[in-house]
Structure formats: C-alpha cells, structure tokens
C-alpha cells in the first residue's frame, strides 16, 4: 500500500529513496555477520567459501526475483519446487541423450518454466482461484509430471554441458560464480523494470488494490499472468544452475525450494499482503539465509539449527516491518 505514496508521504520524502530502510538494515546485518565470521573463523572469508555461498544462494535468488513480483501482486507461488523438478528432469535427459549445446538446453529450460508458470498465472487470473490454492494444486500436478518423466529412476551420468552456470572453476568469472552474476544482472533488470517502468509499477498497484487497479485502466489479468510466467522462466534458469555441475538429478529435486525462496523474499522486506517490496531486498535476503547456512556449518553447529534461524529471521523481518507500519499510522 505504501508503494502508491499518499500526498503526505511525497511531501515528506520528495525524492524516492533508492534503498529502502529494510534493505539498509539487511546490508548492515550482513556486513556485521561477515565481519564477525571473518574474524571468528579462518575458513569463512576464503575465496572458495564465499564462492560457495554465492553459488548455493544463486538459484534461490533467481527464483526469488520472480517471486518478488508475484508476491508484490498479492499472490504467491508455492509450486516453484515442482516446476524446477520438471525443468531439471527434462533438461538433464535432453543433454544426456541428445548432447544439445548449452544455449539450446538453457532455452528449453526457460521455455518449460515459462509454460508451467503461465498455467499458474492463467488459473489465478482467469479461474479466479486464490493463488495459494492454485499453486498447491500445481505443486502436486507438476511433481507428478516430473516423476512420470523420471520413470522411477534418478537421471545419472548427466554431462557437464551446463557447467558455465555450475559450481566450481569452469562456472566462475573473476572468482564469482556465473550463476550469481546471472542473478545480479537479471535482478538489476527486474529492479529497474519494477521501479521505473509503468507496467512494472502496475504490479504494485494490483497488489495494493486489484479493483482500483482495474478501474485505473490496468490490464490486471495480463499483468498477473506475466508475473507468474516470469517466475516460471526464472525457475528454468535456476534449474540449469542446479544441474550445472552435471552428474546426478534425483527424484526429490527441488523439494522445499518454494519455502526457501519465500523466506528470502519476505526477509528482504516484501510484504506478503502485496503492494510493497523490491528485488534488491530479495537478493539480500537470500544472501543472509546463505550466509547463516554456511556459518552454521563452519562453526560446527547442528545443521538443523539453520531452519530455526530462518524462522526467527522471517519473524524478525516481518515484525520490524509491522512495528514500522504501526508507527507510520500513528505518526
């Protein structure tokens, strides 16, 4: 709701801030965490560990870019994990059985994601069903499709066609994984699009009030389908990152991805009620989750604690936001 600034807010803040409060807070928290970990452990601030963090966070960030748009419209997509499974099994079999080049694999992956995402979008926009119900349904249906294509066995012996976006040496430029570069470039494009272009702003308007958005002449249905379709396409890219290093694609591919992505988006300050949020915040949120996961491993803590931390982070991020909203209202 805050995205469509009221006159009073515009007066108080004549130039739109490039960085929102929550993003600034995340940067501070991340910097502090990195500083403490670099001093506290001698393994954290090594190029291989930093590169690992970036690589493990890249798929979550990539899907998160699209998920930010979906959540800004007041929707949600919990089927991304199953979408990733479909993309991964098809692309893995494709590059194993017919040795297609990198570009073809990537295009196929994005195309599959685009189709699966569009189905979600059409059901939400035209079927008039609540997004969480639609995507809970397609979560099952897409997983079914993926498992049928798996034919009861994992896909092994996947060649390293996609190693340019995979982990390790061949997938890095300047010591940073290409997957993370990709996430940053696509994230930047999306950030500019959602911030400065009219059709990007429409998502915020829809999230703020769909009826008002329609009356203001926004093609609500088209814009909704676009948000889900873009998310699907990005799941396609993320699927390529997952199979990038080659080897094995297992039947449980992508299980639970939706929750990590939603966690990253929400920690990044996007309101689940729609109308507010930025891609920059999502990238920072994903980095925070990745850093904590890595730190828990390095400090030798139990890996199960990671989820506890994610839960606490979600509550903190949204809690701070709620408190600020309350202050804003009473001010």
């Amino acid at each position, binding site marked *: 709701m805050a995205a469509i600034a009221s006159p009073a807010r515009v007066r108080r803040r004549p130039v739109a801030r490039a960085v929102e409060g929550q993003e600034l807070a995340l940067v501070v928290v991340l910097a502090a965490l990195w500083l403490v970990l670099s001093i506290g452990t001698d393994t954290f601030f090594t190029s291989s560990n930093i590169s690992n963090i970036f690589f493990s966070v890249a798929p979550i960030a990539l899907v998160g870019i699209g998920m930010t748009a979906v959540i800004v419209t007041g929707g949600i997509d919990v089927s991304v994990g199953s979408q990733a499974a479909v993309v991964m099994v098809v692309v893995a079999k494709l590059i194993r059985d017919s040795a297609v080049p990198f570009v073809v694999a990537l295009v196929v992956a994005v195309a599959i994601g685009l189709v699966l995402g569009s189905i979600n979008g059409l059901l939400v926009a035209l079927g008039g069903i*609540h997004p969480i*119900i639609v995507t809970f*349904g397609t979560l099952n249906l897409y997983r079914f499709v993926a498992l049928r294509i798996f034919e009861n066995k994992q896909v092994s012996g996947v060649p390293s066609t996609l190693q340019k976006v995979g982990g390790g040496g061949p997938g890095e430029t300047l010591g940073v994984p290409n997957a993370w570069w990709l996430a940053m470039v696509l994230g930047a494009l999306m950030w500019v699009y959602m911030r400065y272009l009219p059709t990007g702003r429409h998502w915020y308007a829809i999230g703020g009030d769909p009826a008002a958005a329609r009356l203001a002449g926004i093609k609500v249905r088209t814009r909704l389908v676009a948000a889900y379709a873009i998310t699907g396409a990005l799941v396609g890219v993320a699927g390529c990152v997952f199979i990038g290093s080659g080897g094995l694609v297992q039947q449980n591919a992508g299980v639970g991805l939706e929750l990590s992505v939603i966690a990253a988006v*929400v920690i990044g300050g996007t309101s689940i009620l729609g109308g507010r949020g930025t891609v920059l915040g999502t990238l920072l949120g994903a980095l925070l989750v990745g850093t904590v996961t890595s730190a828990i491993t390095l400090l030798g803590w139990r890996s199960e604690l990671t989820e506890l931390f994610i839960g606490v982070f979600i509550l903190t991020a*949204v809690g701070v936001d709620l408190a600020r909203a309350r202050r804003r209202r009473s001010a």
Partner: protein
Amino acid sequence: MTATTTPPTPAPAPVPEPRGTAGRSSRLSRLVQLVLVERVALLVALLVIVVVWFYLLGQNGYLTAAYDSDYLAASLDSFVPLCILALAELIVMVSGRGGIDLSVGSIVSLAGMALGFLIGKWDWPLLPAILVTVLVGALLGAINGVLIAYVGFPALIATLATYYAYGSIALISNDNAPISSKPVQDVHSLTKGVDVAATIPDFPLQLLTFLLPVVVVVWLFLNRTTYGRKLYAVGTNDIASRFANIEVRQTRFGAYTASGVLAGIAAVVIVAQFASARPDAGSVGNGMALPAITIAVLGGVVVAGGVGRVAGVVVAALLVTWLNAGILLAFEGSDSSQFQLFALGALLVLSALLNAWSQRRARGAG
C-alpha cells in the same frame, strides 16, 4: 453473505441490512446455501462413484487385491490423522484474513516427540502423557495465535516461520533420532483393529476413540456455541464484527490454538500408528499441512474466510482416503504414489474452480 457461513442455523447478521434489500439478500443466501449443500451432496456422489468404480475394477481382476469392505475399513488408518488436521485447517481458514496454518505438520512432529519423551524416556503413565502432548500442541498453536491475532503477522508468514522453527526443534530434541522404546511401542494398542461383530469389518480403534469425539466436538463448537458463531462472523468481516462487539483478536487467537490442539491429537494418533515418535513425522514428503489444506478446500472451505462446514471436510477426507486406497491397488510400485499426487492436485484445482464458479454465480444472481 453472512447467512452463507452459518448453515444449518442462520446467524444474526453483523451489520443490519437496509429494509429494501432484505428480500433479495435472503434469496441470494438461499442460493449460496444451496450450492454449499450441493457441495456435500456432490462429494457423497463422487465418493459413491469412486467406491463402486474401484469395487467393480477389483471384481474384474484389474486391481492387485480386492477393493472390499475389509480393505476400505483398514485404509481408514490414514483417514484419522488426515481428517483431524483438515478440521484444524477448516477452523483457521474460517477465521478469515487469509487464515492458514502451514505449521500443523511441524506441530505433529514436535508434540509427537514430546509424547515420545514423556512415556518413552521419563516413564509417564499414558493418560497424563497424552494430555500433556495435546497441551504442547495447544501451546504451539497459541504461539501462532499470538503472532497472528495480537501482533498482526499475516497467517502465511507466521506459520511459515513456526513451520521452520518447530520442525527444527523437533529434529534437535532427540538428535534427529526417533524414540521407539518399549513403552512407546505399547502405545500402538491405541490403534489396533477392533472386531465388533462378524458382519462388520475390523476397523481401526482410533476411529472411535479419537476421530469421532474430535468431529463431534468441533461440530458442536462451530455450530452450537457462541464462540463458533463469532468465529464465522470474524471470518466474514473483521470490522463489522468489531462493531458488533465481538472480541476479534481473542476469537482468531482461539482458532489457531484449536488448530494446535487438533495437531497435538493427530500427533498422538500418529505416534501410536507407527509405534514410534519420529522427529520428522509431520514433514515427510510435502508435509502434512498440504494434504490437510487440500481436503479443506475440497470440502468447500473458502480461503477468504467465513465459509466452511465440518460435514464437507469429513466427506472430502473420506473421498481422498478411499481414492488413494484404490489408486494404491490400481498401479504397481511407486506408480501409485505418483498417481495419488496427481489425484490430489487435480481434485484441489477442480474443486477450487468449482468454489470460484459457484461464488461468482451466487454473486451474479444477487
């Protein structure tokens, strides 16, 4: 729309309507009511079709085993926890404002571990241990309730966070290992098959000891108490309810606590069924929240709140259980679990489309 939420007894409308529209709105509500009544009828018809269809398939040798009354009765094993959790989702979804509880699976894990510790490690007698387990569930649900009703978190966010947190604590509690010492194994007797008479197939005991009381109590609570009426009112319209002097926060808090209580009861049933308290009991596969939410929606519960009935949810749970049981016999090996996924997903999307369509029709008629 308020009257639509309250069959069979019409609730007092939170906002008095102007005279001119009274006739029209009652016609409208009768129509919507009809659609909701049809939902239960529709589900029963579907149920009959599914059972007859699989029975005929079994008679003609297309299934790997007979789909007869014994098999149907035995498959009610999985029906009990599923139905209890679906009722939990019914209550929170009716409470409105995007009510949903993603954490029920993790509550099942954590409360189940509590039961495991109480009787497996600290040698508590069974009954107080069960009571404390349900209280643990209530406490975990109450935490959700405080976050959502009093602090103002969106339900999706609060329960996503506690899904992570409770699940993590359950895993850590016993070093990721299940508790299955002798006393825990003995709990299995709670869920043995009962043999009432030769003519009735053996059905699982927990049907009588757990599910029946739960269904009756939930139904009485929603339909025969002031709290139930308030819950539907709050779910239909927050602001109108506040003007009608209903304690909105308290009511919504109650819904999430009730959901925790039901998850605690489901935890007891699941520990008994497996004769073991497993730290990941509620999170295997896609978790338990997902099927429960699916069944609630299939049973006619509307995500926006204020609409949903116990009968619809129970029949929907039975439909899914017996459909899954049939699919299990129809396909070999892991194929059956895949087609169960398909059936669940297709049912969810189709029933949601039906919900949306019937609501639109109701609005169009008004």
